[in-house]
């Protein structure tokens, strides 16, 4: 099946007074229609920068190379007008902090209808009834009342639902959700994930879920791509990846995640050291200095993503068997 979003060889770097920062290094990634891809990595791994760059939202100082296509259409280098019609209409965005993404002095209704009036040229009354419908779809209680309210009058979970309603206003094919539940309480988080799962099933909505939390990715995603130091190090179906990862970093990260079933008397598995700094030049595998399996080749040469059985990919010279 053709990919909806196709990233090829995408690199993002920034020139700073202290040198060149490589935020994203040659990433290839496909998102197929209707699937949910989890982009998992620790802070600074480049997961957010990758998506910002693909949709023309990166800072002006960013140097972007490679290709990003949505439905076959090249996004990199496209004009502001073209990108504006893509964002909002064909791709919806939800970010971590709904309070920062919503405009504080506009009512929820005004913010959702604005999207519809700009992208769909709807009349004020048509936009209003559509906004009401959208709020019902994201399961906000008392939607008519919420339309008149301002962001500060809503709880965190409700704000995130309102954000979602506005992202879905123009029936996009793709939703980018960047840490959508990180700022929320666990019980509220469970509700938002449930809602995303329903929307995905009901509308064949493709979702890219950016998260630092393997648990959240496991609850929603069909496939997971793991990022480390700006590069994708492993990719595969969620159950397969959880059952047995090829890349030592994925294994270590999964082992470090405390679960309710983790034994309490043994120390938690942790990864020694820390990821390379953004200014470091990498000769070999970025994970090699922290990797217990690394050998000479790992330190000297950079592994590329290679195919493994069951349509999985891993960038490693000394991978584990699944």
């Amino acid at each position: 099946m053709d990919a909806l979003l196709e990233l090829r060889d995408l690199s993002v770097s920034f020139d700073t007074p202290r040198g060149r920062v490589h935020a994203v290094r040659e990433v290839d990634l496909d998102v197929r229609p209707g699937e949910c891809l989890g982009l998992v990595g620790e802070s600074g791994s480049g997961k957010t920068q990758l998506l910002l760059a693909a949709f023309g939202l990166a800072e002006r100082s960013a140097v972007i190379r490679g290709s990003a296509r949505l439905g076959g259409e090249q996004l990199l280098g496209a004009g502001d007008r073209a990108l504006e019609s893509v964002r909002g209409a064909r791709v919806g965005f939800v970010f971590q902090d709904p309070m920062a993404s919503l405009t504080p002095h506009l009512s929820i209704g005004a913010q959702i209808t604005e999207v519809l009036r700009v992208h769909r040229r709807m009349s004020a009354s048509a936009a209003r009834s559509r906004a009401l419908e959208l709020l019902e779809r994201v399961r906000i209680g008392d939607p008519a009342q919420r339309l008149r309210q301002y962001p500060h009058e809503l709880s965190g979970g409700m704000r995130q639902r309102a954000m979602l309603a506005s992202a879905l206003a123009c029936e996009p094919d793709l939703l980018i959700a960047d840490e959508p539940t990180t700022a929320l309480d666990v019980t509220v988080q469970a509700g938002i994930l449930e809602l995303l799962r329903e929307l995905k099933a009901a509308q064949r909505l493709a979702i890219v879920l950016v998260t630092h939390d393997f648990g959240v990715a496991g609850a929603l995603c069909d496939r997971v791509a793991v990022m480390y130091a700006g590069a994708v190090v492993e990719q595969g179906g969620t159950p397969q990846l959880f059952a047995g990862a090829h890349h030592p970093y994925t294994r270590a990260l999964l082992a470090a995640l405390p679960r309710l079933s983790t034994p309490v008397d043994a120390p938690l598995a942790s990864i020694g050291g820390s990821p390379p700094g953004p200014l470091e030049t990498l000769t070999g595998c970025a994970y090699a200095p922290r990797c217990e399996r690394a050998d000479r080749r790992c330190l000297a040469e950079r592994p590329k993503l290679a195919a493994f059985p069951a349509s999985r990919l891993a960038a490693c010279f000394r991978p584990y068997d699944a």
Partner: protein
Amino acid sequence: MSAGTLCAVQDVSVDYRVQVSPWAPARTLRAVREVSFELQAGETLGIVGESGCGKSTLVSVIAGLREPSAGKVFWRGADMSAQGAAQRRARRREIGLVFQDPAGSLDPRMRVAALVAEPLTLVGATRAEQERRVAAMLERVGLAGELGARFPHELSGGQCQRVAIARALVNDPSLLICDEPVSALDVSVQAQIVNLLRDLQRERGLAMLFVSHNLAVVRQVSARVLVMYLGREVELAARDELFATPRHPYTRELLAAAKMYT
């Protein structure tokens, strides 16, 4: 209260005055409602609940950073509200604090060694004594000695949290209060800090209050767990009992939500 009781909280309530607008009359928000529990010396108690449930307010009362609006806090059997300034200072020295945002709780203008030494200056330790204890403490929390000359912004989040832990423990407190100490850290670093806190607690026989919204983390470091909801304690039980047979519906809901993705 038994002889080994370090701290006892009796029917503690905390109110905040909330002024919604300059024109509206101020209202009272009861953040903590009639909470009671005892903490034995060397015991670990986890406090869980969602944002706004009053868990941070509760520990700030125990730390002496805030006065309860009602109820009493006893420290080694003595009523804290009846104590004078000198006794309060003495008690504060017995309590170490670690907060969520490691960079935000360290003075950005001070070097790491000075940050760790500061609590020692308050008890009048000599220069040589300070240097010796700071070096030992930095080593114990896993920081290389040369990091002592760095400023907080030159450290990673995990390193900053190690500095905060060193600072909290350098005066040999009997109680360590950790308020969401690993929530801002990446998973790989989070495990390192949890292990470090657990090791330090055991080798020093520290009592520990560990506040977190993450049940899986709390389970790792607490012998008993207190669950709070809307300012009230809804369940207090030994760890294994709480996780195996939660009695309160809210505890069950929390556990079910946590199980979804762990």
